[in-house]
């Protein structure tokens, strides 16, 4: 979603620094801008500083230096005004297990200035919206992970915030719950809510975000729309796996002219890689050319550039490797190392 002319950014950070004891810089001079009405995906490996940035933007943590504005209000000087504009669903859906969903929504209403009747009605609407009407009078301690996440989202929406911060909202969720939460985030955004989403999941960022910022070691290393960022990395790669190593030379001869051949990798006698802007459309010509040269093929894959490739290109390390979708929460406030490249990017496969 593009920024309407003249409308102020929903979120701005200027030279934001957060230093912990021992001089550890979790955030190191971060500048960013999120347009009103945008879904901004904030990506980074564990310990990159994502959670620290979110805690600063939501007034839970003061920056060591620099400032950030949310809805034009400073998180340092005008925290109270910022808190009236934002909704927050932090990691791990911290919810009191002794209370029912309905009670929590009512309490959240009180915390955000809703009158008792308003809070009751709003709570009912939100329970319906997130599909928890029947579970609304049950204690949260008995909710599943997905239900707790949905309730967490509902709690963040009680006061109709302008800017919604979601810190790794789908960590640990099953695919169905994850898809349901994505639908809800999109719907909220369609209604005008700006969404600042941190995630370790590349797919989540690609599916939801209008723009993505990648943070590493407390610095924003690259920013743009997922499509534009991936386009910067280069064309897709076609990976050909040969039936035997003897055909490698013939395969390289056959494919010359269809794109740029990548140098053969170590021990890669049965693998040939071709970079081509044609992408999937090149599969048929590749197979035809190999067939004409009598090359036995095991498989052909088209690998599209991923956000992990983008991360790799700008940092020399892989983001995906640091977040293997195991459902484990981010370590948050610590400065960490990006993990060296070791895994293949996401692939579209044709066999």
């Amino acid at each position, binding site marked *: 979603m593009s920024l309407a002319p003249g409308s102020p950014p929903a979120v701005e950070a200027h030279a934001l620094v957060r230093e912990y004891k021992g001089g550890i810089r979790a955030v190191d001079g971060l500048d960013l801008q999120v347009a009103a009405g945008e879904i901004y995906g904030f990506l980074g490996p564990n310990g990159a500083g994502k959670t620290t940035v979110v*805690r600063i933007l*939501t*007034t*839970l*943590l*003061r920056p060591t230096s620099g400032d950030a504005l949310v*809805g034009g209000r400073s998180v340092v000087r005008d925290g*109270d*005004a910022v*808190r*009236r*504009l*934002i909704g*927050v669903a*932090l*990691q*791990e859906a*911290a*919810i*009191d297990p*002794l*209370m029912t969903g309905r009670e929590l929504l*009512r*309490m*959240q209403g*009180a*915390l*955000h*200035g*809703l009158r*008792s009747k308003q809070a009751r009605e709003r709570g009912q609407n939100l329970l319906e919206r997130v599909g928890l009407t029947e579970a609304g009078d049950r*204690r949260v301690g008995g909710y599943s992970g997905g239900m707790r996440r949905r309730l967490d989202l509902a*709690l963040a929406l009680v*006061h*109709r*915030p*302008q800017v919604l911060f979601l810190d790794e909202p789908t960590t640990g969720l099953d695919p169905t719950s994850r898809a349901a939460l994505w639908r809800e985030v999109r719907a*909220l955004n369609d*209604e*005008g*809510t700006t969404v600042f989403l941190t995630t370790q999941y590349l797919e989540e960022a690609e599916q939801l975000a209008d723009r993505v910022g990648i943070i590493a070691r407390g610095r924003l290393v690259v920013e743009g729309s997922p499509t534009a960022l991936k386009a910067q990395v280069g064309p897709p790669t076609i990976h050909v796996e040969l039936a035997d190593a003897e055909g490698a030379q013939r395969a390289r001869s056959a494919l010359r002219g269809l794109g740029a051949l990548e140098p053969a990798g170590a021990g890669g006698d049965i693998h040939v890689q071709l970079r081509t802007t044609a992408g999937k459309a090149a599969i048929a010509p590749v197979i035809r050319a190999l067939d004409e040269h009598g090359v036995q093929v095991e498989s052909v894959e088209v690998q599209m550039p991923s956000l992990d490739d983008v991360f790799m290109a700008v940092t020399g390390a892989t983001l995906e490797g640091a977040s293997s979708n195991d459902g484990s929460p981010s370590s948050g406030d610590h400065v960490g190392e990006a993990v060296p490249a070791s895994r293949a990017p996401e692939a579209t496969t044709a066999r």
Partner: protein
Amino acid sequence: MSVGAAPRPRAGAVVVASWRRALNEVLRVRGALLPATIAPVIFMLGMTGQFSRLTDLEGFPTDSYLAWIVPLSCLQGAGFAGAATGSNLARDIEQGLFDRLLVAPVPRAVLLLGPILGAVTRCLVPATAVLAVGLLLGAEFTGGVLGVLALYGASIGFCAAAALWGIFLALTFRTQQAGPLMQQGVFLAVFLSTAYTPEALLRGWLAGAARYNPVTHVLELSRQATVSGLEPSLANTLPGVAALVGLILVLGGLALFGLWRIGR
């Protein structure tokens, strides 16, 4: 759905909401109230059984050790109920629940009032249980209604002070592992007072500590209920009230300092 700035929350509504939540700790956890209620009663019975002859000592202001120990047991129950507020807050901090409260546009000090009120409400249960058992065992309410009111007032004030102490530690250490320190603080404050014997019978540094310990005055305030030599009067009430106000101001200041440091 339209989006915009939320209205300003009303402090009263926030306090009531968080007070109700604090009461869940005992209303919704089966048996949660039992240890906090039974412990001071058992303490009262045990101490009375062991030290009942202390009243034979010259200078002991009453001939009933039960009458001497009932107010102490009430205060202990209240103190531990208050300190538990700190453990609950530390748990909320560890689990991220406190963050949810901190991102609400509520003056942060208001967020502490509900849990303190919850503790004060909870402390009435052990205090009443101790009084009831004391009455059954023959303790006399020599101070009448005013004396009982003084006892409840002292218990409530001491509970609030202990809650602030617990909150300060919770905000400082941000872990439930600080729980024993919260309880030990209360224990120590009571132990170093005229909890078990009057000041006249204490010797050495313990006498000095009890003399300057504000809890001694809080105990004197509460003993107007059952100790015949301490009739309800302004002179017997003011030092205790002043001690409670002082404790609450100092510990409240520490709690606010802990709150101020959050996120810095």
